């Protein structure tokens, strides 16, 4: 009696094979909940929008001049210290920590977008 009941119950609870395969396969490493290891990678348009939003907020910049390819010093008329401020604002926006030497090289929107898009930890 008990064994037939058990069999009847078990026959109702069946996990589809495809689901278990997906868990066992390589997909396991791509989605890991509660981890901050680059699971949620940004797409390019999102990065561009957020970078431009941050750059436009700088008080010395005319927002209408900002485009994805603009150079901070040549096109926007900033000085080198303003560039440092913008790069730091971008770091905070994307929760990054950019080494000093690399941050020093970022001098245009295009470079900033490329760096942030390719960074595994940007979010």
């Amino acid at each position, binding site marked *: 009696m008990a064994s037939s009941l058990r069999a009847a119950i078990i026959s109702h609870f069946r*996990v589809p094979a495809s689901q*278990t395969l997906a*868990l066992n396969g390589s997909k396991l490493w791509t989605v890991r909940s509660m981890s901050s290891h680059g699971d949620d990678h940004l797409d390019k348009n999102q990065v561009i929008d957020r970078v431009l939003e941050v750059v436009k907020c700088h008080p010395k910049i005319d927002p209408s001049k900002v485009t994805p390819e603009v150079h901070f010093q040549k096109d926007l008329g900033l000085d080198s*210290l303003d560039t440092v401020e913008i790069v730091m604002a971008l770091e905070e926006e994307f929760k990054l*920590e950019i080494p000093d030497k690399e*941050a020093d090289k970022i001098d245009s929107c295009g470079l900033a977008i490329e760096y942030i898009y390719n960074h595994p930890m940007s979010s």
Partner: protein
Amino acid sequence: MSGVSAYLARRAAQKERVRILYRRALKETLNWAVHRHLFYPDADDLRKRFDANKHVEDINTIDRLIADGEAAHNKWRHPDPYIVPWAPGGSKFTRNPEPPSGIEIVYDYGQEAEEAL
């Protein structure tokens, strides 16, 4: 001619040092500021201190000013600076690391044997 290029190289090195010093000092200011609204005036003050010596031309004076600035920065460094969580020293550094490759986890806990019976 070599004198000119040496001068230019030294100037470029000085400019880079100033940029990096400003970057570090700005981060330090953020570390010391408890709230955002306290950070903004401090950052403006810092900027003013850098801008005050903007037009100094003498190359040795510039070197001395940079050295002074770096010394002041080192003196006022924060003992417990903010570090982005995933970076070395951050609160999430090496937490939940990826398992080594080649290890598989079986999730159906022996149910497959039941099915075979």
